[in-house]
């Protein structure tokens, strides 16, 4: 991972740990909702809002429904942050 990617990944992990209140939570690009306790449709909205605030970006409605795993979420963030 390049520096910027690593930084985004760290910040994203921080958001996850804070939201799901799990200090030891570690993300990989393959992490999905099933792997994280409490990641349901409601907390997904909290997650989106927290990420939008942290990175000062806006997701489209299509993106919100499309991610299959953390890796795809990362790609969305990265595309918006770098543009």
């Amino acid at each position: 991972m390049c520096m910027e990617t690593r930084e985004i990944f760290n910040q994203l992990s921080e958001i996850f740990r804070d939201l799901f209140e799990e200090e030891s939570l570690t993300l990989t690009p393959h992490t999905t909702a099933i792997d994280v306790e409490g990641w349901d449709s409601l907390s997904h909205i909290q997650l989106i809002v927290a990420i939008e605030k942290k990175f000062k970006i806006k997701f489209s409605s299509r993106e919100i429904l499309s991610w299959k795993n953390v890796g795809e979420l990362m790609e969305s963030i990265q595309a918006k942050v770098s543009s």
Partner: protein
Amino acid sequence: MISSFKTLQKNLKKDTTLMPTIKVALAGDTATQFLATALKGMGIEKGCIIDLFEAEYNQVERQLLDSTSELYAFAADYIVVFQSSHKLLSLFNKMPTGQQQGLADERLAFIKNICSAVQSRLICCNYPEIDDAVFGSYSNKVESSFIYQIRKLNLSLMELSMKIPNLFICDIAALQNKLGRDVMFHPAVYIGSEMVLSLDAVPYVASRIMDIVCAIQGKFKKCLILDLDNTLWGGVIGDDGYEKIELGHELGIGKAFTEFQQWALKLKNRGIILAICSKNNQDTAKEPFEKHPEMVLRLNDIAVFMANWDNKADNIRRIQSILNIGFDSMVFLDDNPFERNMVRENIPEITVPELPEDPADYLEYLYGLNLFETASFSSTDADRTKQYQIESLRVTTQMNFTNEDDFLKSLQMKSEVNPFNSFNTPRVSQLSQRSNQFNLRTVRYTEADIERMAKDTHFQSFSFTLSDKFGDNGLICAVVLEKKGTETVFIDTWFMSCRVLKRGMEHFTLNTIVDYAKQHGFRFVIGEYIPTSKNSMVEDHYLKLGFIPVDDPSRHLFRLEVDRYETKVCHITAL
């Protein structure tokens, strides 16, 4: 700052023992899970546990119109109805063109139906506007436009709530005006989730709903305490003099302070007590109120005026003791962060808003806090200031007397003594129920008890009023004597309102009792003290009045010999 949704969520893990529980049912036509969580979290922040029943969102009509539904079985204290503008719009969109102008009436009829079905209090959210921009501003001229219908519906809800005492409108349309539609609503989230409130707006809506619940439960603000320099006017009165403070439209940023004062005056006129707490000389501080042509507030708008060099926490405690209301019903506004923190640290219950630095921002900031929610309004609320001014006048007059006797003399007190009769029975009974501290035997009497005693020749009753040059306190003391044989009268009851402590009323009362005993040939007066958790104030009452303890291990009895009694000095004249 309002708590974030996350903070409200965390509140649910807090210790809530000792908090009262309120049962709330929430019914909405969109996803309300976030609002439900926020309501519970906000409840804990405001000191109560919300036992919540959440109706499924596609079941609003069934749950509310069917008296056998789970919602009614829950027996809520409050039912909150949150119908969204989006569903209103989609209903409108599906209506045939000719029927669209009937939308508001149709929805109002639904709310009316709920009102007649519901026994508990109903809190109904109104509709934040969505401008579908089909007509532009011309929609104001078109009855069948959506904007026309949504505004009509909001107005109709206000009119309906005036007719139905149990219906309260939660004004989230006003909230949207304050926050802005783009903060209130998150389109991308809405598309994927049926959430019509953004996550940032949810705590505000929960807060407005809880404001109404708390006001109905009796938790609301009664008093606004104001600093002077740079809060009520620009500049420092002690340095600048009253001619040079910033006020009105002529000087500097005076307009900001004028408008702020106008707001305070409106609050006063609707029953909020205004008090001043300022570090200043009293005379200097009062000068603008008396002489400045642009002052909106005048001295007669202020119930308690505290200007001196003592610390503000002490002065606020004095204000509290005069007004005799809880600190949690007070708001303190001061431009100085040091004073704010000092007051917060010393009196944690009081609300101290973090006033913005620029006075231009004061009002918009305060509007956003919604500090003065109320559950009632009557024209007599405006008279409240008068009653408190009188009490304040007494206290400040007393400060000018070094000798208490001189102060009491100056009050020109008068008391009217009457046996219990049909006119004073309700008040005697009320005082009997409410007096806890100055109450020797704490026997509670209903109106029926009092009527019975009034007729029974074994008893002699006395009621006492007290008025002085400042005003009338009304009926404040009652005594019941029981005749025990031919020689002794027993003081069955003696209670007094604590509002008139330290005025010599005890002496006047005892003089009256002994006069009666003498005239009717009794030799002894016996008094008894029955301790409760609240009446230790009168533990030594009879000793102080010159009674001798009676040797009785099981009771606290005291005896007075009528022939040896010297009439007590007091400054109260019998009317």
